[in-house]
């Protein structure tokens, strides 16, 4: 009765073993490996991939998804056969699937998309900590713990469907954290949180405005965002804010536009006062004594813009010349001192040459008249009686400013000299013959009347002073 064999190896035991093995083998033969299935496959149906609309349709074909342990192909390779779009996403870290598999190389499709959990089961479940949320446009860096100090789960923000998101998810929690701030923030910037926030916490306590072109220095550093960024709803709105002073400070302007709109020309962000105005940056540099003048000496009635820059506008009252030198004071005067006069007559239309240079001003400018004088010689020099009206009024035909000696080379009536006009008759000057006036002549100064050939003989003689 008793033996060393195991108690199971009885006749009925062996028969039972055979029957069980045959039943299992028969079942595998007729139904494949279906009896090993731990649960029904999903009937979820979105689109037709690989010729089927749901996993359930290939539920009897285990090999469609399962690979044998000794095969080189992995299960994910079987997924890729139908899910070609996802398979190509996996190649790019810019995509959610690509980023996820790049960050977690050990992850496979089935880790987030488990199956055999029933016909109606969710096909996507994952550890939210694994999900590369930043790859779908919103990082969870700043969302590690909820307002209740619990780790976030998808449902906290997504309310049942992870493919959608409503901003009221933000408001609900953030109102619990800081109700006053949240309400003010929503009022200031609107309810579309994701228009600005990407979860990396760009705009939180670590926000550094100085990374942008408009640096917040001194008093600007203490203003609240909405003092400048009014009605901004997106990042583009925030960035579109003009950076010139006037676009924010127009209302602060006590100068009523008289200084223009570039506040920073005088003011700094340390405060409106003290202001430093550099007049030399304006169109009218303050040279010489101008630098000592008080503002209101030129800028009357507190009007600073549009003040004329010509001398006379201010200095008309200082004009000791009574307007006789015109209105361009700067033609003679320097800004250092009225007495520092540098008048160059040669820059006028009557340059002073020859004997004119030694004259006192009033010799020509009688009655202190300095402008409007005629350039004509006759305006100063009268035709001498000696000319007897024979030469007209253009003195310069014969005379220069060096002296009155005439250089007349014209014809001379009545007498002749050797091969000439007769002007140089006997080498004399006009006055040798014409002692009083050119209309009368005497020969006897040279010629003796009794000896007309001899020295001192008289005759008609022409002026020809050399």
């Amino acid at each position: 009765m008793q033996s060393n064999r195991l108690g199971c190896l009885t006749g009925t035991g062996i028969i039972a073993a055979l029957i069980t093995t045959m039943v299992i083998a028969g079942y595998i033969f007729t139904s494949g490996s279906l009896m090993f299935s731990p649960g029904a496959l999903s009937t979820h149906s979105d689109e037709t991939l690989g010729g089927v609309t749901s996993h359930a349709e290939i539920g009897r074909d285990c090999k469609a998804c399962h690979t044998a342990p000794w095969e080189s192909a992995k299960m994910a390779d079987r997924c890729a056969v139908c899910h070609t779009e996802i398979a190509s996403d996996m190649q790019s870290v810019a995509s959610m699937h690509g980023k996820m598999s790049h960050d977690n190389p050990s992850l496979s499709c089935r880790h987030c998309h488990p199956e055999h959990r029933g016909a109606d089961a969710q096909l996507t479940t994952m550890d939210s900590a694994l999900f590369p949320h930043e790859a779908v446009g919103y990082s969870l860096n700043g969302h590690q713990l909820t307002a209740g100090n619990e780790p976030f789960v998808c449902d906290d923000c997504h309310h049942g469907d992870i493919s959608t998101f409503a901003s009221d998810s933000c408001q609900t929690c953030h109102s619990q954290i800081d109700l006053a701030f949240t309400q003010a923030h929503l009022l200031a910037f609107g309810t579309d949180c994701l228009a600005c926030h990407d979860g990396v916490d760009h705009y939180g306590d670590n926000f550094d405005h100085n990374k942008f072109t408009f640096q917040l220095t001194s008093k600007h550093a203490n203003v609240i965002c909405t003092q400048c960024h009014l009605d901004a709803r997106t990042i583009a709105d925030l960035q579109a804010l003009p950076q010139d002073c006037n676009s924010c400070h127009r209302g602060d302007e006590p100068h009523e536009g008289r200084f223009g709109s570039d506040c920073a020309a005088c003011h700094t962000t340390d405060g409106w006062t003290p202001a430093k105005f550099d007049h030399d940056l304006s169109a009218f540099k303050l040279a010489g004594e101008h630098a000592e003048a008080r503002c209101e000496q030129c800028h009357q009635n507190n009007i600073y813009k549009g003040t004329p820059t010509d001398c006379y506008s201010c200095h008309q009252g200082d004009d000791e010349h009574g307007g006789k030198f015109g209105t361009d004071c700067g033609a003679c005067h320097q800004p250092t001192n009225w007495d520092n006069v540098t008048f160059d007559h040669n820059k006028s239309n009557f340059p002073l040459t020859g004997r004119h240079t030694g004259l006192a001003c009033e010799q020509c400018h009688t009655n202190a008249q300095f402008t409007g004088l005629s350039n004509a010689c006759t305006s100063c020099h009268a035709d001498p009686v000696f000319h007897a009206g024979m030469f007209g009024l253009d003195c310069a035909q014969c005379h220069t400013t060096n002296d009155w000696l005439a250089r007349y080379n014209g014809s001379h009536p009545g007498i002749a000299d050797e091969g000439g006009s007769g002007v140089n008759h006997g080498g004399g000057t006009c006055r040798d013959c014409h002692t009083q006036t050119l209309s009368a002549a005497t020969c006897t100064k040279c010629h003796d009347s009794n000896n007309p050939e001899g020295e001192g003989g008289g005759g008609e003689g022409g002026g020809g002073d050399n």
Partner: protein
Amino acid sequence: MLRGNRELWLALLAMILITGLYGLVLFFTREIPPASELFGHGIGIVGFIFMLMTETLYSLRKRSRSVRWGRMSTWLQLHIFTGLVGPYMVLLHTSWKFNGLAGVTTLLTVIIVISGFVGRYIFTRIPRSMDGMEIEGTLSQEALKQARRLMALWHTIHIPIGVALFIAAFVHIGAALYYATFLK
């Protein structure tokens, strides 16, 4: 009572402890421990090892002539202990899903435990020494004969169920290794 059924009380205690552990896992993970994860898989493996021990150790000791190690009654107590705790752990391993072959295996496990209870009842009808040897003379010949016949009948039922159970279990393990554990 306690002395006579020590293995039953110990088995109950072990099952309560395992249930407590199961409850903790349930509380912290907020899901029924899946058969494929650390806890669910662990109790499945340990439970099956217990069931294997139930099947083999007592049977080997009973048939061994050379090594007489430990009392038969102690081995029987261990047989009963592992025969209760092992199946209970396997039951928790199911995560309360009874699909396909795994479900059949669970069913067979439940049957074999019930069958084991029945067998123990018949077995204790026959007076035995501490070594498990039958003691003559306390029962009438007729009663003893009937008890032995009953015992033999029980064996012809219990053993095939057990064999079927283990074959189903091994196929289940093989399929689990193929389709899940070694899945790449």
